[in-house]
């Protein structure tokens, strides 16, 4: 929980009679969703929000993919269900959707969106492309979720991995970036 500070500098007011009156409203500390008033008949209506915090619960894992050398795709749904073309999973494959936890103000809607439509995963000099990210609103769509009463909500992330013809075997890693913003 972050607090925001606002400072109103000293105002120097002079009466017509020449008397100098200095009213100082020094630092106001603003707490979330709480009106703050200061001395000197000052009034302030302040709305502030907790910065939504995003953290990883599970990585987006396309699992152990068996390739015969041809091109293929592995789509992981937001429920973690794979759809494969041209390749297969091992029976004990560890594939699953990404899961992200958002911590924010309870009951407040949060817009979530991808920063870019596709991201690479790399194995040294070798690369595959991941696209069609699904945050719950369908591939390539932004999505709105509402923070739960406990101040958190989990977001499931699906996407599609594109395996090239003759793709080098090995372990590929990468990352994706998303935004969360209060409506």
């Amino acid at each position, binding site marked *: 929980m972050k607090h*925001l500070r*606002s400072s*109103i500098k000293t*105002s120097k*007011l002079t*009466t*017509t*009679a020449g*008397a100098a009156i200095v009213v100082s*409203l020094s630092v106001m500390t*603003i707490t979330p969703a709480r009106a703050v008033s200061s001395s*000197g*008949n*000052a*009034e*302030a*209506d*302040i*709305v*502030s929000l907790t*910065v*939504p*915090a*995003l*953290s*990883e619960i599970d*990585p*987006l*894992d*396309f*699992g*152990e993919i*068996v*390739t015969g050398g041809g091109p293929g795709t592995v789509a992981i749904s937001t429920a973690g269900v794979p759809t494969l073309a041209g390749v297969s999973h*091992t*029976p*004990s494959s560890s594939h699953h959707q*990404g899961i*992200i936890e958002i911590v924010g103000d309870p009951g407040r809607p949060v817009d979530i969106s991808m*920063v870019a439509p596709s991201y690479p*995963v790399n194995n040294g000099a070798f690369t*595959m492309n*991941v696209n069609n990210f699904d945050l719950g609103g369908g591939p390539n769509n932004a999505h709105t979720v509402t923070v739960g009463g406990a101040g958190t909500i989990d977001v499931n*992330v699906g996407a599609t*991995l594109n395996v090239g013809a003759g793709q*080098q*075997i*090995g*372990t*590929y*890693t*990468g*990352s*994706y*970036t998303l*935004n*969360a*913003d*209060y*409506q």
Partner: protein
Amino acid sequence: MTSPSDPNMKKSSSGRVAARMAKTGIGAVMVTLSSVAMVKAIAATATMPILAKLIRSVEITVNTSLDFGTLAFTRDNAGMAVVDPASNVLTTDSSNSLIPVGGRPRAGQVTIRGSDLPVQVSMEQPEVHLTNGQDFVTVADFKFLNHAAGSRITITPDLTDLTITLPVGATLKTRVGQTSGTYTGNNRVFANYQ
């Protein structure tokens, strides 16, 4: 990892300080901060990991056929001959109905090429018939690696070259009244990632 995209709250257009002074007598001053409203939607950006492991499909190569060599037999008794995969040696039962007399008896050998993941290897049939066109002998009790391993094992290819070579043994069984001849047949080996 989270970072606010705009850590500073913006003041709205109404965020102004209105100071009004009313003079009554010697001087009274009231300062009013009218409608200092601060509203800002704050965005967060986070980067999350992606993982994928690409592995080659399993390949099986038959390097050597399982061979019981040349066996002499008696028509009056059934007999058994065993090729041990570990020792690559043929032995016969104690009935003396089968006697090795030549040829080159040896265990079969297959090479599995895959990834650094466990692979289950198994024989398709528990027993098969070898035929000479008229008669048959039975080959059963297939064994990988050694007598204790059985006909279904799980192995992990060597990390260096991602291959492993498996010897295959079995037991040949003749029947009473068996006819002579050259008997051939086959059994399939399956290999799949676990």
